[in-house]
């Protein structure tokens, strides 16, 4: 009986994760479409292909744990359960957005969701998350902070400085590196002298693990283990998730730095297809999965409609609010 219950619970949790992954995928596809049709300003860094990283990590944490994200942060936001219509509103520069259109894609924060912000400076969020962990520790709370960044950020000074301090002071931070193989166009092999990102943890005497970031179940399992370690007060940990963005770095990226063959190989390992297959193995019918897809599509469609219809802030909104 117990095993049946556990399996049922696991199916329920993974189905919820799958739902979030679909939301992220369709959200990003909708954005891509809006850019193609010139309906959005600025730029955006899509995480198509990396959904298992965001959902796997966030779903294995507590809701009271803090998150810090980077320039490629839509997945992290939606994985935490933020309202897609308000995230889309922010990207469209609308007053209904989480930051009233002041922040946009790379500067999106929701304190009510304990989301300390996406960050437009590569590596810029790493010390912020480390400082948040210092505050958590100072107040003797048992929350932890998860800081997302990419392989490129692992070469910033802030990465090394922050990991060093977090380890010295045993701060409750889980550093999560989504290694998608390229810092914009620069392949990891050309920018990281270490054998991998996880290996960099050894220099700061903290656990470092490399995990298949295309596998939702594996990401969840390792996150849960490392989060337990971090929460227990033993210090920070570094989780490297190997993954791939099926899309370019940002809009207008012709992807000249990688081959179509390589892309096709990673497409074969797509995290959403893998998760769907896993769920079918747990007994979900193809009809149920199709219904989940349909439902996620509709949610995003409604989000785009709501955001499109929302007004922009006023001139006063743009020019005020600099000081508290």
């Amino acid at each position, binding site marked *: 009986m117990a095993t049946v219950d556990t399996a049922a619970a696991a199916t329920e949790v993974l189905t919820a994760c799958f739902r979030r992954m679909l939301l992220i995928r369709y959200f990003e596809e909708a954005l891509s479409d809006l850019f193609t049709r010139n309906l959005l300003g600025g730029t955006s860094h899509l995480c198509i292909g990396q959904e298992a990283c965001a959902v796997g990590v966030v779903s294995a944490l507590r809701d009271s744990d803090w998150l810090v994200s980077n320039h490629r942060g839509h997945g992290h936001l939606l994985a935490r359960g933020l309202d897609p219509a308000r995230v889309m509103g922010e990207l469209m520069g609308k007053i209904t957005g989480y930051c009233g259109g002041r922040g946009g894609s790379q500067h999106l924060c929701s304190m009510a969701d304990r989301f300390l912000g996406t960050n437009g400076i590569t590596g*810029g969020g790493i010390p*912020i998350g480390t400082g948040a962990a210092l505050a958590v520790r100072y107040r003797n709370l048992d929350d932890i902070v998860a800081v997302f960044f990419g392989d490129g950020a692992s070469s910033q000074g802030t990465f090394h400085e*922050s990991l060093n301090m977090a380890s010295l002071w045993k701060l409750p931070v889980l550093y999560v590196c989504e290694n998608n193989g390229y810092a914009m166009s620069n392949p990891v092999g050309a920018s990281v002298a270490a054998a991998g990102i996880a290996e960099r943890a050894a220099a700061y005497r903290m656990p470092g693990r490399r995990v298949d970031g295309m596998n939702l179940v594996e990401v969840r399992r390792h996150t849960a283990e490392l989060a337990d370690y971090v929460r227990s007060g033993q210090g920070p940990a570094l989780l490297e998730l190997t993954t791939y963005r099926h899309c370019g770095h940002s809009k207008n990226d012709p992807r000249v730095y990688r081959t179509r063959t390589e892309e096709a190989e990673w497409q074969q390992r797509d995290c959403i297809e893998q998760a769907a297959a896993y769920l079918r193995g747990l007994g979900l019918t193809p009809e149920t999965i199709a219904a989940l897809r349909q439902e996620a599509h509709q949610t995003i469609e409604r989000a785009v409609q709501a955001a499109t219809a929302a007004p922009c802030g006023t001139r006063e909104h743009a020019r005020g609010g600099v000081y*508290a």
Partner: protein
Amino acid sequence: MPEALQNDPRLIYTSKAIHEALDEEMARDPDVLLVGEDIGVYGGAFGVTRGLYEKYGRARIWETPISENSFVGMAVGAAMLGLKPVVEIMFMDFIALALDQVLNSAGKLHYMYNGQVTVPMVIRTPGGAKGGYGPSHSQMLSNLFVGIPGIKVVAPATARQAKGLLKSAIRDPNPVLFIENKRLYPQRGLVPEGDYTLPLGKADVAAEGTDLTLIAYSAMVPVCLAVRKALEPRGLHIEVVDLVSLQPLDVETILGSVRKTGRAIIAEEACLTGGVGAEVAALLAAECMDALEAPVRRVAAADVPIPSSMELEKAVLPGADDVVRTVRDVMSW
């Protein structure tokens, strides 16, 4: 002013006045923490935090490795969660290493997150040249920070100001750059005992006069006061306005003084180009042209790095002679 007079003032060093502000604020509010290099048992490069480590311990004094950008960023993160970190940057020139977190995080978060967060942190740092520290340890970089919206900038000139303003800076919900000065640390002034605050954003008429206004901040204030005193016997009545706050500027006090005297010179230790002096000059040109009886002039450091040799250092810094010469020019216009 009146509240300051409630307590008995004592003659103490500016560095001691800053120390008292830190000590009293830490005692008053457990959310106030110190962050920086060598601020523990060593007491900071200029001795400002001496004794605080023994009193408040490791939990309140975060003595960091040499990692300016990250420890400033950590202070930002801690401030977002409600702590009130006071960061020491050992020499103002070193803030270059942390500029990303000052510019892109501390100064922007409250605005770009649409008021969801405040960043109640202070960065204390000594600017200015003294005694041949050389190019990387001597600059007054006030000009870089007045152009960053979201940061308040104060630069006290006296021990009394230093204590009262630092307390206000710590209690302010915004990031405040608190510019100290190596030449002022060993200057003594009358400082009230116990708690008092001085408002951020207010200039101080340090001495009244009718013929000309010398506008200055930080270590150039005592220089201007000395010039005023030296020229008084010749019948020249100079008003000295201490800006105190560089961001925001106290426009009302500046304009009030210059409308009265009709002449203005701005004296600062930062280099001439793009400085606070330029900002004040533009303000005067826009707002009180009708009252001006002579062109507005600036006295500042030469547009060169600060050389190491003490003789050469003197040659590039603005001194009393430069101020006197400029006063003569302006008065004879």
